[in-house]
């Protein structure tokens, strides 16, 4: 009988063999994992913190990678003050969302209403050492700005190009022809590079500059032309120039001047001739003293503002404990003062009381003088319509008004030198005013700014208590250096103006004569430059056209001819011509699957430099 193959179990067991233990794998694993968690937590407490980090910080932050407390507040995430501690050490406030709104729209009221956006919202950290935290994706912009490159509006500068010439008389046509002739070039396209020369560092063109680009044709042995005789009563001679201690006068030689019969002439004039520039300033000061004073006052006010700023720009991190305390008290006081003034202003500016008062005046007048009563009645309507506080002026009127007020201040100061500190303060405040803002807005802005500073100060003190390392000195000084540079510029500007001293007031006739002298004096300059109200218009051709965005030519020039974006520029006869097709040119290449369409390719979020 053969053995049957078994289907199933060959022999049965009496009982089921013991079952595997429950949790036999999970318990040891859980214990091991728990131990690991405890080790990691313990390590964190001891100081090994990178294990907690969701990722390395970007290279620039490498030195604070393991110091969580540099950026993080326990339980609260990353506060803006921590970013500002290093990146806006002088409390300029330009890294805030409201600074962005102001930068973009120029409307301070809108800026004041801008929502507070955390820096970390857009600048996402812990994405690895090589990640760029400044590469902000479009979707962040899209939180407020709807649209894309296809719906991008035309450049404002193009739309406004008819309004203002760049301070020069210049036609591309003639210049290109000349260059082609001189260098035996065949195509107009190649000629562009003769003047528009690449700057490797900035990846754009060198600014056009007289000595480099124009002098070869427009200057013969250093001379750009001659000046017909002008009366010595209106101008100073070389001696006068030297006696005023103008350094640049050293390069002028006496043989360049021809003096005869009370008149002085120049057979040869240099570019930026110090004698011409000084005498133009002098004639302007004499012929139009109010505007000149206004200009000077503006510069003085800017200097004062910058000085104040420089004093305040000492980063908190660089101050010692006592100084911090002192600053805190001061900020507290200023903030409270601003609040009080604001309260007082809104109480005083209550329209209803004003309107009631006008009503009284009107009824009083009605019987005596009906015409005056009508005038007052109009005033009442205006007052009740405008609401609290004086209504902001439109931007165009604002500048004129500011000039006027600054001139008045100048006059007051001249009349009574004892009032100088007071006028200086007023001037500073007037200069600080932004079009579209009234006093209440300004006060609110000051208050908020002081409050923000105070917050930062308190945070700094807290960090000091915790023993958190201060930022690197180089970072802290960046802003100061910039302010100091701006201050130096402003001082030099003032210095050149300060040399001109006005003496007597002149009659209109005399002023007219002086203006005519100025025209003669500037004859050589006005071949190219524009003379406006006795002063040479500033040349803007060398400055970037875009103000809220950046554009570099280099990558574009590699891709295409100049004529692709500036067609027909070789036939242009007017200096304001750009012959730029506008946004359409951009769209030709910046589209899907070709070139990037990201906002950040061109646009800046944070304003550049110290405002």
């Amino acid at each position, binding site marked *: 009988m053969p053995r049957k193959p078994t*289907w*199933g*179990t060959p022999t*049965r*067991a*009496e*009982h*089921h063999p013991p*079952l*595997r233990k*429950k949790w036999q794998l999970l318990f040891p694993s859980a214990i091991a994992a728990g131990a690991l968690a405890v080790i990691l937590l313990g390590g964190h407490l001891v100081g090994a913190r990178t294990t907690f980090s969701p990722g390395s910080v970007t290279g620039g932050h490498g030195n604070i990678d393991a110091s969580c407390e540099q950026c993080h507040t326990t339980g609260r995430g990353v506060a803006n003050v921590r970013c500002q501690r290093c990146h806006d050490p002088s409390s300029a406030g330009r890294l805030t969302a409201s600074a962005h709104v102001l930068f973009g729209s120029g409307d301070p009221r809108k800026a004041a209403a801008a929502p507070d956006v955390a820096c970390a919202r857009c600048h996402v950290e812990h994405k690895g050492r090589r990640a760029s935290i400044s590469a902000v994706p479009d979707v962040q912009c899209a939180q407020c700005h709807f649209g894309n490159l296809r719906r991008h509006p035309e450049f404002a500068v193009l739309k406004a190009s008819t309004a203002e010439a760049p301070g020069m008389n210049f036609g591309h046509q003639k210049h290109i022809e000349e260059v082609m002739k001189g260098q035996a070039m065949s195509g107009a396209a190649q000629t562009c590079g003769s003047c528009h020369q690449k700057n490797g560092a900035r990846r754009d063109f060198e600014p056009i500059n007289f000595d480099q680009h124009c002098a070869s044709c427009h200057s013969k042995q250093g001379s750009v032309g001659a000046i017909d005789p002008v009366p010595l009563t209106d101008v100073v001679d070389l001696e006068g120039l030297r006696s005023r201690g103008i350094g640049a006068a050293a390069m002028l030689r006496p043989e360049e001047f021809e003096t005869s019969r009370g008149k002085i002439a120049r057979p040869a004039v240099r570019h930026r001739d110090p004698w011409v520039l000084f005498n133009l300033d002098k004639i302007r000061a004499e012929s139009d003293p109010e505007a000149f004073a206004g200009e000077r006052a503006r510069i003085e006010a800017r200097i004062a503002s910058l000085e104040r700023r420089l004093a305040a720009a000492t980063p908190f991190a660089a101050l010692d404990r006592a100084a911090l305390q002192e600053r805190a008290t001061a900020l507290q006081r200023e903030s409270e003062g601003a609040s009080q003034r604001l309260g007082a202003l809104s109480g005083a500016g209550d329209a209803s009381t004003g309107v009631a008062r006008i009503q009284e005046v009107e009824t009083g007048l009605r019987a005596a003088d009906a015409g005056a009563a009508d005038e007052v009645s109009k005033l009442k309507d205006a007052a009740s319509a405008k609401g609290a506080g004086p209504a902001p002026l439109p931007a165009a009127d604002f500048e004129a008004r500011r000039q006027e007020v600054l001139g008045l201040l100048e006059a007051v100061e001249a009349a009574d030198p004892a009032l100088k500190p007071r006028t200086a303060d007023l001037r500073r405040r007037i200069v600080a005013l932004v079009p579209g803002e009234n006093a209440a807005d300004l006060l609110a802005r000051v208050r908020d700014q002081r409050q923000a500073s105070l917050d930062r100060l308190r945070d700094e003190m807290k960090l000091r208590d915790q023993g958190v390392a201060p930022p690197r000195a180089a970072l802290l000084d960046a802003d100061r250096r910039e302010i100091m540079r701006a201050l130096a510029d402003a001082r030099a500007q003032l210095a050149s103006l300060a040399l001109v001293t006005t003496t007597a007031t002149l009659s209109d006739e005399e002023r007219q004569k002086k203006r005519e002298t100025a025209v003669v004096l500037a004859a050589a300059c006005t071949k190219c430059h524009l003379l406006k109200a006795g002063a040479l218009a500033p040349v803007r051709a060398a400055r970037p056209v875009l103000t809220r965005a950046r554009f570099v030519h280099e990558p574009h020039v590699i891709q295409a001819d100049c004529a692709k974006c500036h067609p027909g520029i070789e036939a242009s006869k007017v200096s304001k011509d750009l012959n730029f097709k506008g946004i359409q040119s951009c769209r030709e290449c910046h589209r899907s699957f070709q070139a990037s369409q990201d906002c950040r390719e061109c646009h800046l979020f944070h304003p550049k430099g110290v405002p």
Partner: protein
Amino acid sequence: MSNPVDRTQLQQRYERRMQLMVPAEPDLLAQQSLFAGIPEKARPKVIDKVRRYIHLVRYEAGDLVLREAEYSDSAYFVVDGAAEVVLTSENEMRAKVRGGAHVPAAQRPNARPDVAPYIGRGSAGLSGTVILSALPADVGAGSLTLGPGEVFGEIGALSRYPVSATVRAVTPLTLLQIRLPGLRMLLASSKDFKKSVEERYRSRILSRALRQVPLFAKVDDSFLEDIKRRAELVSYEPGQVIVEEGAPAESFLLVIGGYVKVSVRAGATDLALTYLRKGDHAGESALLLDDTWPFTLQALEHVEVVKLTREMFREVTAAYPDVEDALWVESVARLKARGAIKRQPTSSEYVQMAMETGLIHGESVLLIDLSTCTRCDECVRGCADAHGGEPRFLREGTKYHRWLVPTACYQCTDPVCMIDCPTGAITRQVGTLEVTIDPPTCIGCGNCANRCPWGNITMVEKEEKRPDGKPIEIATKCDLCLTRPEGPACVQMCPHGSAVRISFKDLDRVTSTLT
């Protein structure tokens, strides 16, 4: 669990069990009317052979002889005293089915029973365990007293239906307990006894049995009485062919006990089509079509059959056309099934397997699909958790194609394990599926474990020790997780849905599940 009452009952049961160890005296037996039907010459020989299975038992007044819903393998002959038969009304005997993984939704409590009739089945009863009674059905809801010379319990023993009435001693009672082998011998040797048993069956059971068959459900009482009188009772031994395929159809068969294999011939082999169990009937298609038998019927074990002749069948169909319609429907279905099995013989494999291995007895058989089972032992663990840490089955056993039949109780229709239990620890509630062993009552004799043909009862050591130092053992088996309202843990705990429980009563579902 145990209380004083249980203890005294236990004591009684134990004493009774001791009585069963003693064969009855031949002299005593010879005096009894029971043996009167045997020819004088053969009588001592028969008595000598039979007396091993006959025991003299005594009951005090008020003692229970048979308990309702229990299984019994013995008939009783009243020697002295009087016994009272108490019937519960039918309403109280309504089958109660607990929820379980294998119980189709339609059969859960409060659900309408599945109306589709199964091929070869009587009415689709809720459980199938309560169809017929082993005791006088004509007593109604009242009681009946049995005196000396009366026999009871023989039909229950022969047909293995649960006892449907309680028998209690009214006076001190002396009985002869005749166990099944003895009963069979007596039936074979004594024509009178056989006749009287048949007579009693006819009078007491048959009408009820016939009523259970949908065929006769609406037939007049008088008509039924007529059939009852004329029907023939036949028994078959295991393996005996009842009818051959192709034989002329002469009779209509009603199975009363045992299993009958229904097969068709396909070439040289027999393809199992289905099987008949108690309450099922056969032969209607041949009679209706006036054709030869389309199937072969073969007794799988000891089978009791009621035979109706062609004429009687004709009378019924002629008198009751709706019965005839129902039969037509049924016979068409059967013939269709026959055709299907001939075209696709593989589906008969499982039927054949079930018959060969005894799975057909299973009311709730645990099967594991090995092609999805990951051997994670979750079923065993679930079982162990539901039963105090000791699993009630072994996840090993026989394999058929992709199915493993683990060593777990089948919950047989006729639980043989119950028969020999000396203490009555094994019980099955009327209308429920699970056959349970009550641990406090179990004395660990091991009878049930030995009796189970599939070795599905395990003797488990308890922590207690006997005075002689040997551990106390008790029998354990699957109880379909009585304590879990969700149903059997093995099925519930299987994360892969590999464990299923099926009832072999419903062959269609069996084949559709298994293939």
